[in-house]
């Protein structure tokens, strides 16, 4: 299982703050995103927005990074703090 979190405008548009998902073999952020879109076809546009960022275990990561059981993943829009 992996935990997936969504933040800010993306969380509001998906109407989802957090979910858990089985972790497949050879899973990457990209394959996991594809599985999320299979489960929620209406998320297609939002999750493929070129500005969406992803993090794995509290650090930024790329779409080709590997995902392992127990990881905490997150998807969110560009940050605007400070």
């Amino acid at each position, binding site marked *: 299982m992996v935990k997936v*979190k969504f*933040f*800010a*405008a993306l969380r509001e548009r998906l109407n989802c703050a957090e979910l858990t998902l089985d972790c497949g073999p050879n899973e990457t952020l990209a394959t996991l995103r594809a599985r999320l879109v299979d489960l929620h076809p209406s998320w297609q546009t939002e999750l493929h927005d070129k*500005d969406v960022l992803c*993090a794995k275990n*509290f*650090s*930024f990561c790329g779409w080709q990074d590997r995902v392992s059981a127990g990881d*905490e993943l*997150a998807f*969110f*829009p*560009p*940050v*605007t*703090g*400070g």
Partner: protein
Amino acid sequence: MSLTIRVQTADFSLADEYRVLAQDSRCGAVVTFTGLVRELPDAALTAMELEHYPGMTEHVLEQLAQQAQQQWQTGAITIIHRVGKLALNEQIVFVGVAAPHRKAAFAAAMYVMDFLKTQAPFWKQELTASGRYWVAAKASDQEAQQQWQRDA
């Protein structure tokens, strides 16, 4: 060398933070940056609401502070960022750096702010008379961050 990272709803006191930074007897220079909630030029801003990613925020800020401390050989660095609802004129963010000399203190404080703006998972909403709006990321903040990589 002491690094202090705080993400909190409570306000902070510049005087208290400065007192800690000024304690390091090797550091003759202390630079502070404070960001405040201000009126929008075109809209009636009533407040800001700040969301963050608990766990990742602290991790990113800690890394930024460590990088700045190593790169400029500074003394103590403090980063405080508030979350939740902040009224007009409230303090949002504090970055303070103590260093032996002014050049390092200024550079480290600017570095932390430039990377915080593009790397720390905070998101702002503006609450105005006409509704709530997520703030869009600024190209100028991306450029400020990238400038450090070009200068490196």
